[in-house]
């Protein structure tokens, strides 16, 4: 599957596959366009999670979303991790493999957080080279997400959206545009979210993320613990217009309500994107 095909494939509206929803899903096989899984939750485990994933993958399109690729680190890429990632993709027939524009550890220590990169030529060159290695291993395009950030580096030489555009251009990777992260980072750093969206390379955007956040006195925190706020929905509508429509995923990872409530929140996206009748999801699994 080429990046162009990924961009053109609108899977519809999905939600993250979460443990607390397993009983409901396995009993009802509810109506939903697709599921996104957290890749690491299904690596190094062979128990019930894999059994559930096998059953889900038989019935719904699945997208893999990781948090530990460590693509922006100066450490060498973890070959074992890449092999496991590829094996998982083959097992569940994932349509897309995504992670984040960030680093998660250095010198062998994993911080288990999406650490921010300075937007410099040095970081860009490192990312482009490593994305190439990952795509060679996966034999598929890698899709990377803009993270929420809480610091801005003084020596950054370009804006975040300029950096993302350059990254996709130089590496050939796709972009997962998290609309909530756009809003959180723009608020935290005083950026203009409309300028951000205007600078996005839309022909590289494969899918959207939506989520809720928590407002603190000094900053917004990307907690995935609340409904999507109105400002984010409005940015989503703008992104939908600019892109012409992309697969959309709602994330809810803390204080998770019932499956029905999460799905209802996700389905609000239908109204914001004009409720087009798309029929069946298109495209083929990314099987090697």
């Amino acid at each position, binding site marked *: 599957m080429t990046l162009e095909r990924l961009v053109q494939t609108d899977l519809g509206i999905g939600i993250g596959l979460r443990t607390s929803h397993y009983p409901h899903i396995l009993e009802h096989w509810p109506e939903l366009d697709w599921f996104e899984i957290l890749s690491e939750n299904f690596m190094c485990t062979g128990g019930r999670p894999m059994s559930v994933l096998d059953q889900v993958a038989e019935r719904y399109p699945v997208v893999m979303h990781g948090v530990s690729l*460590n693509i922006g680190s100066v450490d060498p890429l973890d070959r074992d991790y890449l092999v496991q990632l590829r094996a998982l993709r083959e097992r569940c027939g994932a349509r897309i493999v995504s992670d984040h524009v960030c680093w998660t550890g250095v010198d062998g220590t994993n911080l288990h957080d999406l650490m921010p990169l300075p937007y410099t030529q040095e970081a860009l060159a490192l990312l482009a080279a490593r994305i190439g290695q990952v795509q060679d291993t996966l034999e598929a395009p890698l899709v990377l997400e803009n993270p929420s950030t809480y610091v801005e580096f003084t020596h950054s030489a370009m804006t975040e959206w300029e950096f993302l555009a350059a990254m996709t251009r130089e590496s050939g990777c796709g972009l997962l545009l998290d609309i909530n992260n756009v809003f959180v980072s723009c608020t935290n750093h005083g950026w203009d979210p409309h300028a951000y969206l205007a600078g996005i390379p839309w022909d590289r955007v494969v899918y959207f993320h939506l989520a809720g956040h928590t407002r603190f006195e000094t900053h917004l925190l990307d907690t995935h613990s609340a409904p999507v706020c109105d400002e984010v929905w409005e940015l989503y509508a703008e992104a939908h217009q600019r892109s012409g429509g992309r697969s959309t995923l709602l994330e809810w990872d803390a204080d998770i309500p019932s499956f029905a409530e999460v799905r209802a929140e996700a389905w609000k996206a239908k109204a914001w994107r004009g409720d087009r009748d798309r029929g069946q999801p298109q495209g083929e699994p990314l099987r090697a």
Partner: protein
Amino acid sequence: MPEPSLAALQRWMSLVVRHPEDPNAASHTEAARALIERGQVLNGDVVRPSPQQQPLQRLGVYHGGYLARLIEVLEHDYSALRYALGDDAWRALATDYVLRHPSQHPNLNGFGHRLPAFVASQDLPDGAFLAELARLQWAVTEAFDAPEFEPLDVQSLATLSEGQWADLVLHTNPSLRLLAFDYPTNGFLQAFFDGEQPKPPKPHTIFVSVYRKEGRVWRTKLPEPAFRILAALHSGEPFGKALDAGGEHEEDITTWFQEWSADGVFRAQ
């Protein structure tokens, strides 16, 4: 002032985020200053201040998240241990563990694997019991995450002769954990899961098997002879020799074997 290289910036942030106190204290340390001078940070030459936060305060968002995230992982795996210790002692223990054993794996499933030994190394009231409780809870986590397996179809053994039985080597399923305890740890854990408020028990030797069956993890208390036989089978001893490990209880072996087979304790070869 030269801008930091990407490598220096990442190593410095890693130190700052993992420091036991806060980013301000971290920025004073020799290791951090060797990478980025504190003055650079305070001047905003590394992290730009926001209208609401100075650079070190902004880094505090990542610092707070690191500890909270890893302690949350431990609390998921060791809920009963947390209860038995009490919130303050648990918080202190978990914080110390996170700082001494930074995660080195992309997957957090195994992050708590050193906690039983860590608990055993601490000078805690009821420390021996608490270390056993940690071992039992970790065995449950391991059983949950163990590789998939096909249970043995015992009908396939129906035609074996007595001699073939004696030489038979059975393979236990990869989730099986066998634990001998000096305290009734399994009863304590069950009481906790049942919503009771159990107290640390008095010593009493018990033997427990932990295994996964059809996606659920089970804990079963075993008589000592059954434990010895199953442990021998688990270590790869042939059936005849494993029976010797149980002493004079051969009359019970049929019952035990039927129970183990029904529970999928053995896997297909």
